[in-house]
């Protein structure tokens, strides 16, 4: 089993924490994990890319070859389209619909979202709104993990236990919000898949 994920977003959006949540869950299940990150200059408001590779066998390359990713998971709609050449033909593109408009030539959002919908296997998630409903805008990346969780080679229980463990020291309220965000993300995926 090999499951490669391209994670995308804009510097400051928490792409690396999104990646490490999934990586930690996968390791709890005994999978081999490699997580390649972008540090330094690109993090200053630029396009950020992380490669997360999960496998039941040792992984050689830190980078994902083209046409091999099972999933693109993006915190930002424009960024979700930047790495399509890495996506397998049967892969999934799961993206937040909330744009980060910090460049003068950002495309028209409706046209952009329409283009994403045309990509086979794409799932659009209004992660900011769903996170706010769940109780905190900061849980947007947990919504994205939830949306991705149907396809990940990690059991839902494992992910939920990991979330509980991670946020326990911040109090029950924070645990509850993050679990709620995770589950709401799961529901969106189910709805969008059947839409």
């Amino acid at each position, binding site marked *: 089993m090999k499951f490669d994920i391209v994670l995308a977003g804009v510097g400051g959006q928490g792409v690396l924490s999104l990646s490490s949540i999934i990586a930690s869950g996968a390791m709890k299940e005994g999978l*081999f994990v490699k*997580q390649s990150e972008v540090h330094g*200059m*690109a993090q200053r*408001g630029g396009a950020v890319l992380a490669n997360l590779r999960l496998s039941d066998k040792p992984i050689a*390359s830190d980078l994902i070859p083209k046409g091999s990713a099972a999933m693109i998971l993006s915190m930002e709609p424009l960024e979700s389209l930047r790495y*399509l050449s890495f*996506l397998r033909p049967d892969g999934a593109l799961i993206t937040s619909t909330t744009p980060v408009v910090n460049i003068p030539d950002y495309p028209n959002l409706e046209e952009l979202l329409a283009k994403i919908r045309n*990509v086979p296997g794409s799932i659009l998630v209004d992660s900011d709104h769903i996170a706010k409903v769940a109780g905190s805008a900061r849980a947007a990346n947990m919504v994205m993990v939830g949306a991705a969780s149907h396809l990940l080679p990690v059991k839902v229980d494992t992910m939920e236990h990991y979330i509980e463990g991670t946020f326990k020291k911040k109090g029950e309220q924070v645990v509850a919000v993050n679990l709620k965000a995770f589950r709401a993300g799961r529901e969106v995926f189910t709805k969008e898949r059947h839409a």
Partner: protein
Amino acid sequence: MAQQVLAQEVLLGDEAVALGAIHAGITAAYAYPGTPATEILEYILRYKDLHGKPHASWCANEKTALEGALGVSFAGRRALVAMKHVGLNVAADPFINSAIVSIHGGVVLAVADDPGMHSSQNEQDTRYFVDFARVMCLEPANQQEAYHMTMEAFDISERFDIPVVVRMVTRLAHSRAVVETGEGRPENPISKVPVPSSWILLPSNARRQWRALLDRQGSMLEYSENSPHNVLTLAKGRSRLGVITTGIARNYYMEALEDLAEKPSHLHIGAYPLPVKKIRALVDASDRVLILEEGYPYLERTLRGIMPLPVEILGKVDRHVPVDGELNPDIVRKALGLESREGITVAGLTLPGRPPQLCQGCPHGDAYGAIKKALAGFTDKIVTSDIGCYTLGALPPYSAIESCVCMGASVGMAKGAAEAGFYPVVAVIGDSTFLHSGVTPLMDAVSANANMTLIILDNETVAMTGTQPTVLPSSRLQTLILGLGLDPDHFHIIDAHPKKAEENTQIIRREIEHKGLSVIVAVRTCLEEARKKKKEGKVQG
């Protein structure tokens, strides 16, 4: 290495180097922040907070960091120095000369190259420096090797009395995986260098030391020939293709290997000097040899030399593999003659780029606004600059600076431009870059009373690499600069706040008009730094 596995930890390549050094019993670690090496010392600093040692600190620059490590070695103990590739240029003087002395306590330089220039101004290959100094280098291909090789590097350093380099590259430095770790070794006891003349490089001693280093080359090569990091795997019979990989190139080769119908003979090199016998054995068994190495074609150029070749060599020199940028799985697939799998394509899709940029509300933006206004009336001007977040001021909408060469160059270049007769000349440098390499050129400028205006953007942190503390607090800048002998009438500290824009513009304009040297420190805390301080305050409170 017969080390019992005690724990499994998820570590960045950089962090694996750091923990390897700690487990090798280092007494001290020094560095100046620089992507992709910053996380090495950051890990050791966190470790020190928890365990009280080893000593670890940021230094003014890579040269002072390495010199500190040499002092630790002189006292018989082990020290790690971490830096990015261009940092070794700054530390080149102590590095080359530390190869001539007889290193006592182990000295290891963890140097992280940045092929592809993700966060750098060049992609120089540290292996050339290792060769230049006539010392040894270990090049890990994964996080586990980064841990073990760093420990081994200290043993090699003490065995051959040389500084040893662990060569990292960006992709390994910033990739995480599980590392199996064991028990650490204790620190060396304090014991001063036994033969003092071995560290006094007077010509008479230096000649003896140099000859001794040259005489040790044979035993270093023997170590490398027998190293388990240099792995020769010969296919049965003669290979149509032999492959030599170094460092992380092996990962991309392994990734492609399952798709190759005929498995090539393969030599992997992880320990330098280059293992001559193993290379010859691989070449003898192959019709053609493909060389895959991250960085410059160091191995390839050595093999090609200038004499006729017994076999065809494929690599970067003949552009079979791209000669610049970093390797990746797809480049290696192509080099091996495999089809690249293409992913999804959407017709007519062109995406706008999203280059890095200054944070919304960054004080540098306000400083650049004032500088541009102050220069508005001049038909032409020169604004030199330097290395840090503020280099992003070269991009629109600011387009405020005209150079970025190396740490501190803004100051010396401005002096040179002024002395060439150009006017007006402004130099812009960050506070940490100024402390790193800007003070000495300012000394020159003071001495010459150069007709230039130096603007120090003081955001009270090393921002670009993740808000590490500067080696001296900003409050000392005034004393430092005036202590060089600058006319106090032409020294100003201004607040880089948008509310002060008009006032700041006037001060800068006045000093540009002054015929002579002026220094203006534009102070305002970096937004990231302020956020971090607030968060830490909350945790402590």
